[in-house]
């Protein structure tokens, strides 16, 4: 298993403000020097991850105090130069919010070139609320996504003469990337899924499929991927094609680990703080998807704990652990919890580890990452399904 350090790079000083944490949160509450100091701190932690043998994942959001990385590629452009070994994963670039896919392709090529071919590229739909900042149409969002995808891949893979592009949404007179990316025919592509159906599509493309904080649902996502992969390519996918994102708090004692986890849990609490009209902008989900969501009721999409109950909105650290969203404890505890989850979902090759979240400070993050890299990582690197015993009954309760 490969492990990727991830932080949302939050501006935590604003978390004490009342109300929504995104879209309409006034930027007057951002103290730019404090923001700069925090961003530098998070970059230091990414550089530490590189030294420790971890890989690096960055994301982006907009107009929110929960994530200050406004462009994956801006953050990775810095890390491409400042790190030496880590694979660099952008997860991801919200394609349909971008006005200019040519620019996206150029940035991919440049960061891959500077990093010596260490870039991995996630192409994602993104969150509904982000159309308020991009102002791109929420309707026909995925039509635009796929056209941008096709154009970017065509640009990156092109080793021939310049070509022109006259699609439904994007038009280019001439496409010719300077520089070209080092990795051929393209850097590994990632996509995200929260259902077996969407995972099946990613398998057809031979893309890496990650699922975020989905708990037991990861099992059906991965199953959907494996089945589709086998049907399409006639072989089993390598475990490295699957990834799971979760929060990990490691410390030398259980007490300290839970204290850290409590601070990291602030990530979940702030993510919930968004006004309802920003959660499903009309047109962002299809009419059929929205009907299914309304008919299924508010709890249908909640992750389930091991007792089968939906995860409450104000869950405790223990409840997040039970649902497979947090892994907390000493290195031995964390390894055992991850091993159990790994076995139960049928294995995956990428642990997207939120090793910094919420108000976890620099010293705590450094200690957690170091302990994890020294004592948990070597065991995860050799973990296979044959090491695991699986409690099938759990899945009947949580599926």
């Amino acid at each position: 298993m490969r492990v990727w350090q991830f932080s949302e790079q939050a501006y935590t000083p604003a978390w004490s403000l009342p109300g929504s944490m995104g879209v309409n949160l006034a930027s007057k509450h951002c103290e730019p020097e404090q923001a700069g100091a925090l961003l530098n701190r998070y970059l230091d932690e990414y550089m530490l991850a590189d030294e420790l043998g971890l890989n690096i994942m960055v994301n982006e959001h907009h107009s929110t105090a929960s994530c200050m990385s406004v462009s994956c590629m801006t953050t990775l452009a810095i890390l491409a130069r400042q790190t030496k070994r880590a694979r660099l994963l952008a997860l991801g670039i919200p394609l349909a919010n971008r006005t200019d896919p040519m620019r996206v392709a150029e940035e991919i090529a440049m960061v891959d070139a500077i990093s010596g071919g260490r870039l991995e590229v996630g192409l994602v739909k993104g969150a509904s609320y982000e159309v308020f900042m991009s102002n791109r149409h929420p309707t026909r969002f995925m039509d635009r996504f796929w056209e941008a995808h096709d154009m970017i891949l065509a640009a990156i893979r092109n080793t021939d003469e310049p070509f022109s592009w006259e699609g439904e949404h994007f038009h280019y007179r001439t496409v010719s990337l300077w520089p070209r990316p080092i990795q051929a025919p393209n850097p590994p592509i990632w996509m995200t899924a929260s259902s077996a159906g969407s995972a099946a599509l990613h398998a057809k493309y031979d893309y890496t499929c990650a699922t975020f904080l989905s708990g037991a649902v990861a099992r059906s996502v991965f199953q959907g991927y494996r089945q589709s992969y086998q049907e399409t390519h006639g072989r089993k996918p390598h475990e490295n094609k699957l990834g799971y994102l979760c929060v990990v708090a490691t410390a030398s004692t259980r007490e300290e680990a839970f204290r850290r986890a409590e601070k990291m849990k602030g990530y979940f609490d702030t993510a919930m703080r968004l006004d309802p009209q920003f959660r499903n902008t009309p047109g962002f989900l299809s009419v059929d998807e929205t009907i299914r969501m309304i008919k299924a009721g508010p709890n249908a999409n909640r992750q389930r704990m091991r007792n089968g109950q939906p995860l409450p909105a104000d869950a405790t650290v223990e409840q997040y652990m039970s649902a497979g969203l947090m892994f907390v404890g000493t290195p031995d505890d964390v390894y055992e919890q991850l091993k159990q989850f790994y076995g139960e979902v049928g294995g995956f090759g990428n642990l997207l580890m939120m090793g910094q979240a919420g108000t976890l400070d620099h010293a705590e993050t450094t200690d957690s990452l170091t302990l994890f890299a020294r004592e948990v990582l070597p065991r995860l690197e050799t973990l296979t399904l044959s090491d695991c015993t699986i409690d099938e009954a759990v899945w009947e309760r949580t599926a």
Partner: protein
Amino acid sequence: MKPVPAVPIDGGEVVVAGDVALEIFRTGSGRPLLLVPGMDGIEGALDLIRRLSSDFEVIAVSPPGFGASDMPRHVSSVDDASYILLDLIEKLDIEDAVAVGLSLGGWFATEALVKNDTRISQLILAAPLGLKVADRDEPEMTDIFMLTAADAEHRQQRTERKTPDLTALSETELRRVLRNREAVSLFGWSPYLNNPKLRHRLHRLKLPTLVLWGRQDALIPAASGSAFADLIPNAELQFVEDAGHRLYSDRPEELAAQILHFAGNPIVKKEHDHAGLAIQ
């Protein structure tokens, strides 16, 4: 063409205009009156339609994407949709008709009639959307996408109306509500419920036109109504008392009376209580 879902309103039917299947709802007898409803679709205008049906043959149309009307991929603006409304008018062979546009429907009707108004004799616009005259850093109207569904409802009318409980609707009803919302988003997300080019086209509309505005419209200021009345050569602006944006919800009886009167006496008094707006 995609299969069109059944029309759940009594009297509803599907007419293919150009290459697009449109839902229309026909009722009453008399002079033809083409009605283009607001963001809440034909359902929202049923009271007004019922009142008008004693004097007119009302033909209410769901624009592309609304109700059960098809939403073809080549349509992505009100300008695009306006050609389909013109196709419908020709297909139905309407002559000497009255056209009524409510809110968003006023925008649809206007965009169609600036292109061809030969089959329509009078136009009544009840708080139409679609025109941008405010400065670039001032919104023309309240951004409903930034409001909760309940706040957006509250802003649009004075009459108490409960926000629909989506979980209580049948799947057919729910689909219609969601399609309406999706269509409003498609046509109005950006530029926000306006076509910057419309102000340069309104001079083509030569019909006697009555622009009505609710005195308590909390969605869009009356300056927009004044601009419509100024830019349409033969138009008059009148205010409706005790009404918000949805004139058809707050004062359906008054709106029906004004429509009936203007259809019979299309005399426009060009005397507004505002300064004229020149085309720039």
